[in-house]
């Protein structure tokens, strides 16, 4: 009587496991994306997918390439550090194709966003109660948005 007479069932079991393992590896190979684990436990391609989205805000450097005259006026005023698109809105499309004209702005709406008096604003920030300050006149009747200080305008004209 040989000691390994009834081992056939063990081989059957082992082959079932081996088939299962091969199937698992095949499925895993086909389902897990190639770039998964490239940098960590995530899809590496996701990085380039997120970064390839188009931009809406061109950035003030792009504006200054063409509108150097405005920059020249603006840099002496109190709005020198306010980026163009902060007021004018996102204009990446206009930067790419200048024939797409930006919207006209309404200073009556625009200026009060920042300058309407509010107790929570920093004390040194210039604020007005718009209703009392201008009696309904649009802000650009007196102030030039690119150089808002009225005295500065007067000095320049002299």
């Amino acid at each position, binding site marked *: 009587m040989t000691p390994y007479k009834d081992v056939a069932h063990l081989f059957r079991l082992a082959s079932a496991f081996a088939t299962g393992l091969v199937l698992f590896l095949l499925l895993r190979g086909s389902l897990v994306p*190639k770039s*998964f684990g490239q*940098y*960590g*436990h*995530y*899809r590496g391609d*996701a*990085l*380039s*997918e*997120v*970064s*390839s*989205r*188009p*931009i*809406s*805000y061109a*950035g*003030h450097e792009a504006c200054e390439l063409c509108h150097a005259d405005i920059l020249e006026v603006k840099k002496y005023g109190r*709005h020198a*550090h*306010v*980026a163009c*698109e*902060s*007021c004018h*809105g*996102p204009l990446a499309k206009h930067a790419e194709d200048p024939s797409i004209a930006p919207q006209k702005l309404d200073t009556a709406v625009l200026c*009060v*966003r*920042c300058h*309407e*008096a*509010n*107790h*929570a*604003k*920093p004390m040194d*920030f210039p604020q007005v109660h718009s209703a009392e300050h201008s009696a309904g006149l649009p802000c650009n009747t007196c102030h030039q948005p690119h150089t808002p200080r009225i005295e500065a305008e007067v000095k320049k004209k002299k």
Partner: protein
Amino acid sequence: MNLSRRKLLILLPAAAVAWDYVLAGTPEDSPNYKATEHWWGMLLDITKCIGCGSCVRACQLENHVPDGFFRTWVERYVVRDWGFEHVKVDSPDGGKNGFPALDDEGKSFFVPKMCNHCADSPCTQVCPVGATFVSPDGVVLVDQKYCLGCRYCIQACPYGCRFLNPETNTADKCNLCYHRITKGLTTACCESCPTGARQLADLKDPNDPVHEFLKTHSVQVLKPHLATGAKAFYNGLDGSVR
């Protein structure tokens, strides 16, 4: 062409590998950008914030955030007396259209909020499928194609910075305008902030002026006791802010 069966069999795997590269397409959209050379954060200066909501509007326009949801928002704090327990916080429509005038006196200030891009972020640790992660340059991103929408990360964020985008049914959050900063631009919120209250910070770039600011000011992160490694640094942060 004289091609033996033997040569063809050798060439086939090589051709398969080459075809794989063709299918993979161009790997990087910004070829000059090396993620490992950057470590992004943000500086938010409460002493400069005027609550105009420019950042909120810019973020929604740049990132197509649905109405009523916010990747960044502004809160107004009103602290009466001197106790932190009498805090009133409001943020009408995320501060998008500014804040109504406040008649009651008390200490009052604006706090811009956003994803803190934590280095040890709780939200990425709970994702069951690896759809959210900290990128090699320190930005917490969401892989929209891989997200199941299980909302686990939304629960896990201690700062409440995530939401389920109703259009895509995936988790959504501030990605620090990753499509902009990898092209050398600043984020939409920083670009549109009129007072410079928000500044993008590259913590690995020694020439970034933010380093000088961080060295010379008392800055703080939100909920430091949670040790999330938050990289949104606040200047002038009041103890009442949560």
